[in-house]
Structure formats: C-alpha cells, structure tokens
C-alpha cells in the first residue's frame, strides 16, 4: 500500500477537500434543508393569498372580513405541533371547523361561506403520490 500512497498528488487532496466542502455547503443551504424547514401553511381569501405561515411555528391567526351589512366574518386558524386546525368560525355551516386537524401535504380546510381556504404545502412530498422516473 505504501507504493499507492506515493502516487497520490497534492491536487488530488485539494480536489477531494473542494468536493467535500461543496457537498457540505449544499447540505447547509437553506434550500437544501427545505425538506424539513420550509413546510408552510397558506391561507387564501377569495382566491387571493392572505398569508403564508411556517407549519413548524405555533401560531394562531384570525382572519376577519368586514361585510357591507355590518357583520364581520371571522375565522380562527391555529397552527400547533405541525398541524393545522380551524378552531373557530362564525360561518353558517361550520364545515371548516368540523374538518378537524390537517397535517399532510396538499390537505386543506375550506370555509365556503367565507370563501376562505387553508392549505398545507410541504417541501418534501409526503402524500401518497411519489415521483418515479425509471
């Protein structure tokens, strides 16, 4: 094995370190981390994006929509332990509240009377559909 060692050049080591550094740098990139870091919850009102929130940061959001007739539509969305729940809504049918808790990619809570939708987007697709290319 001694003979093999003698053949190794400085440039080999430099290239090895460079490649390892590149691999490490990409590993630490926020974009590369996104599979665990950037799962987010998006709330849309009337088809327009109301707000985007981190799925991993506990938060309670109350969306209020003042109406012409003086009433105010209100929905309360709670993000807790990587799950999303519509805890409160003053809509007629309460379907959104009854939907319960969602946590998977693509799942959504929809409040039709208030034209409000909450949807989970995960960077790492953990839905049942996998991308397979052979």
């Amino acid at each position, binding site marked *: 094995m001694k003979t*093999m060692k003698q*053949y*190794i*050049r400085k*440039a*080999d080591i430099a*290239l*090895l370190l460079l*490649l*390892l550094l*590149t*691999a*490490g740098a*990409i*590993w630490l*990139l926020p*974009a*590369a*981390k*996104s*599979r665990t870091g950037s799962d987010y919850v998006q709330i849309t009102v009337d088809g327009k994006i109301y707000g985007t929130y981190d799925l991993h940061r506990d938060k309670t959001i109350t969306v209020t929509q003042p109406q012409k007739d003086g009433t105010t539509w209100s929905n309360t969305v709670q993000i807790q332990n990587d799950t999303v729940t519509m805890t409160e809504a003053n809509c007629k049918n309460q379907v959104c509240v009854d939907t319960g808790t969602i946590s998977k990619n693509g799942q959504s809570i929809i409040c039709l009377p208030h034209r409000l939708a909450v949807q989970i987007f995960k*960077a*790492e697709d953990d839905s049942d559909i996998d*991308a397979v*290319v*052979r």
Partner: protein
Amino acid sequence: MTNTQPQSSNTNREDPSSPAKRITTVALLSALALIFSYIEFLFPFQPGVPGVKLGLANLVIVVILYRMAPGYALMVNLIRVLLAGLLFTGIFGMFYSLAGSILSFLVMYLLKRTNLFSIFGVSMAGGVAHNFGQLLVAIFMVSTGSLLYYCPILIVSGILTGIAVGIGAFFLLKRLPYQIFT
C-alpha cells in the same frame, strides 16, 4: 490473451491507423465494458441509497484513458451505454447513463491532461461528474430544483466509488502488460 496470439501477427498489429484494427479494438473493449455493466446488473451494489452505483464499467474507461487515445474511451462509453440501455436499464436509464458517462469522460480527460492529478484524483472526479450528469437529467425530467438536496449524497458517493474505481484501475494498469494496448 496475448499468449495465444502467434508472434508473427505482430507485424499487422503495429499499424494503429488501420480502420479494421480500430473497429475490433473498440468492439472488444465495448464488450468488456458491457460485461462489467452486466455483472453490476446481476449483483447490484446498492447501499440503500437510490441512484448510488459502483460503476464497474468505469474501470474499463479509466484504463483505456490511461493507455490509449481518448477517442477509444469515448466510443466505448457510448456503445456501452447504448447497449446496456437497450439490454438492462431501459430507455430512461439510458439517458441518465449517457449524460453521466459523457460528462464523466470529459472531466476525466481534461483533468488527466492537466497532469496535476493522479489516477485516483481523476477517477474520483469522474465518479462525481457521473453522478452530477445523472442528477442534471433528473432535474430536467422531473423539472424541479428540490432534487438539489440530493447533491451532497451524490457527491460523496461519487467520491467513494470514484476512488474505488481508481484503486482498481491503478492495480490493473500495473499488472496488465503494455503490449495488449498497442
């Protein structure tokens, strides 16, 4: 292999520009590379990570690169990928291998020409380039950048397999008599 050939035929073998000789050489080496692909197809060395392969056929390419004109390495590469694609891996696999092996060949050829690297460094870079080429095709086909997080795994596996191939080629080059390449 060399022993079976009568000494008298050496006079014909000396002409390197003969098309017939070049065709036979490429055909022989392609068959050899194809056998390596087949062995890998039969006994896949896959340590749990998809897309990570040893790349035994690269051994042939590296040896050719160090003993013969680079054109041979490229030709053997192309023929090997086409045949292995049709026989084992399928058309999609062929695109991956094609991108990987061409990129790998180019990188190894250029690095070797700089005369700065040993066979281990050249082969290591080739392994990484091979994986990188395949990743590019994958990004193009799935059309998503999220495959980027796969990069570090592929770089490290390319380093390891590349060095393994380099060590193999190193000993092969030491043992194989020079004459069989002329």
